[in-house]
């Protein structure tokens, strides 16, 4: 017996789940977030020796403590959500648009440029706002179409193309910042039209960021309907699943790719418009601030459901704001938020495994029989 080679059956076997009730999958995700908070708490405790509960309370106050702080959190949520909505159609098509960062920046540049050159009052603010929105949409679309055309015609790797377009956009922004700097020599643009407020978003319902919320929520609903119920949305889904199937069904993959990337880039460009005209009123290389990358994860984790994106964006914006608060309260540094964000995302990513697969323990008796 001992000389016979027996194949050992592994202790745990992994097999694909056929399906899982929605509530159960959300329970798993919730558990993942709790595990993540526990891990982050351990991180905070081991590094700083602070009581994690106190730190979390401070985070909550930082993000939602006052009306003002709440609105800042909402503003950041809307920004992240807007970019995620832009990315959703591209990613659903399995077109890896890593270039949201650049698309946001060119939209921002277009907006800032118009604000500066038409800021002398020659055009009324509502008209200027519409003009800026249109131009930023076009700028973003252009930035999205360039890699799409090459992908559609010659199959050029879009992940790296869009990534490189980010840096081209960043240098373009640096160029514009040096060109428009105010005051001279500061190498920053400063708040544009500080006195006249030409081209700034007007207050809606007495709130500075009311218009941001309205625009992004309209997009949220619009994109949901577009992806789920329109013919074009269907084409995107089919192309994402299998290019051959799409071809067989008579769709033209190239055309769909270019059209979808134009939409994707345009919405990201609009996010740049919102960031400049509706929030910071200035432009710098950090206008996009890495959110173009975070938005990819948001869109992917939400499985392109824009309402789930709203939830995830809110959680991330909440963390960011909360971490900034603890940074100033406990003299930590801002980057703690990135650490916590990273840990939470890792846990959510890992939790997807338990939703899609199940683990079967080896039955001891059965194994012995063999």
């Amino acid at each position, binding site marked *: 017996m001992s000389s016979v080679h027996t194949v050992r059956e592994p202790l745990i076997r992994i097999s694909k789940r056929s399906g899982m009730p929605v509530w159960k999958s959300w329970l798993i995700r919730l558990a993942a977030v709790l595990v993540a908070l526990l891990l982050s708490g351990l991180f905070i405790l081991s590094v700083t020796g602070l009581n994690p509960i106190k730190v979390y309370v401070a985070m909550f106050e930082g993000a939602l403590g006052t009306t003002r702080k709440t609105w800042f959190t909402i503003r950041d949520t809307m920004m992240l959500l807007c970019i995620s909505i832009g990315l959703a159609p591209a990613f659903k098509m399995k077109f*890896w648009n890593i270039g949201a960062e650049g698309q946001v920046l060119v939209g921002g540049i277009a907006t800032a440029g118009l604000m500066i050159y038409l800021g002398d009052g020659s055009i009324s603010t509502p008209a200027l706002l519409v003009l800026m929105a249109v131009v930023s949409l076009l700028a973003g679309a252009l930035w999205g179409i360039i890699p799409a055309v090459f992908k559609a015609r010659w199959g050029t790797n879009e992940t790296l*193309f869009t*990534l*490189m377009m980010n840096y081209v956009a960043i240098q373009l922004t640096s160029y514009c910042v040096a060109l428009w700097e105010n005051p001279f020599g500061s190498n920053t643009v400063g708040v544009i039209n500080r006195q006249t407020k030409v081209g700034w978003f007007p207050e809606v319902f007495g709130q500075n960021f009311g218009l941001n919320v309205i625009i992004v929520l309209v997009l949220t609903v619009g994109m949901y309907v577009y992806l789920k119920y329109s013919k074009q949305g269907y084409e995107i889904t089919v192309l994402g699943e299998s290019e051959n199937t799409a071809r067989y069904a008579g769709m033209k993959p190239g055309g769909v790719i270019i059209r979808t990337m134009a939409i994707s880039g345009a919405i990201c460009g609009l996010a740049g418009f919102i960031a400049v005209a509706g929030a910071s009123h200035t432009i710098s290389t950090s206008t996009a601030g890495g959110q173009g990358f975070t938005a990819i*994860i948001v869109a992917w984790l939400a499985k392109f459901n824009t309402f789930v994106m709203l939830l995830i964006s809110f959680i991330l914006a909440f963390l960011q704001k909360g971490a900034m608060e603890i940074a100033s309260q406990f003299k930590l540094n801002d*980057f703690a938020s990135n650490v916590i964000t990273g840990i939470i995302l890792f846990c959510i990513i890992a939790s997807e495994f338990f939703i899609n697969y199940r683990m079967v323990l080896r039955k001891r008796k059965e194994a012995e029989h063999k």
Partner: protein
Amino acid sequence: MINLFVSAIVFGTVILYGALGEILTEKAGNLNLGVPGIMYLGGIAGLASAFAYESAVAEPVGVVCLIITFVAAFLASALGGLIYSFLTITLRANQNVTGLTLTIFGGGVANFFGGALNTLAGGVGQISIAATSAAYRTSIPGMGTGNWFCQIFLSHGFMVYLALVLAIALHVFLNKTRTGLNLRAVGENPATADAAGINVTKYKYFATCIGAGISGMGGLFYTVDYIKGTWASEGTIEALGWLAVALVIFASWKSLNAIWGAYLFGFLTWLYLYVPQLRTMLIGALNLDQDALQILNLTRSSQELFKMLPYLATILVLVVVSLRKKRENQPPAHLGLHYFREER
């Protein structure tokens, strides 16, 4: 002008490490977009360990500095690779999303501790790791002032040459050894490799973790040699990390191509500083008017446009590679996809 080539080589070395690690990883079929995060981890681990050692010991020894920082940087980066491997290989998560998260996480951890180090050392840029930095920057005596050849090629610290050795070693490993062949098989067609008795999971894990360790060396070289042992949380390492990812494509997954590609990127990155000199030379050579070629008289804003060059070059290469569609220039066939035996 010699300085341009010197700085091109030093800059190129940073991204060469990043790219070599990523080539090893991608050859096993894992597209790790966490390179910037991994380089961050390597950089901060090297810096922090050197700082801890030099503040604990009165007279730090150069060799010990080297060993400590090397081990710390390699382990920290490999740990980053391990997180990525566990999520993508064992838990079958999406590679791009996991990689991007690793970039956010690595950057966060590094800048968090980097900021803490800065505070400990009393202000920004005050971290003193003189002994370690000196050890890394030790070069062959007399080469810094020799003729142009010595200055450009022989005046660097040992990490520059180690990167070259590593590139050649990686080439030999991938193309001339049995293990290398198996590794490439895993990246091209894991199902076939599996059927041939190759342990796909093991190969992927080792390639990704060791690859991450090598990438992290780029971060180490950047902090202890390139910027002489300081920490600046401006996202420079992140840009370098993405450049390293681009270099992998630029070199079409060949480590020997990566060498000259890296130096070319370095050259293009620093070119803008030398453009005015170039203009003077051109005017002299072509007997032009003193006011000619104003376009090369860079202002602070047009400098920024010049800095686009390495990225534009990468785009150009991407397009050319896709136009030519040569088989040997294509990425590993199974790149970015996960392998699950029961899903065939």
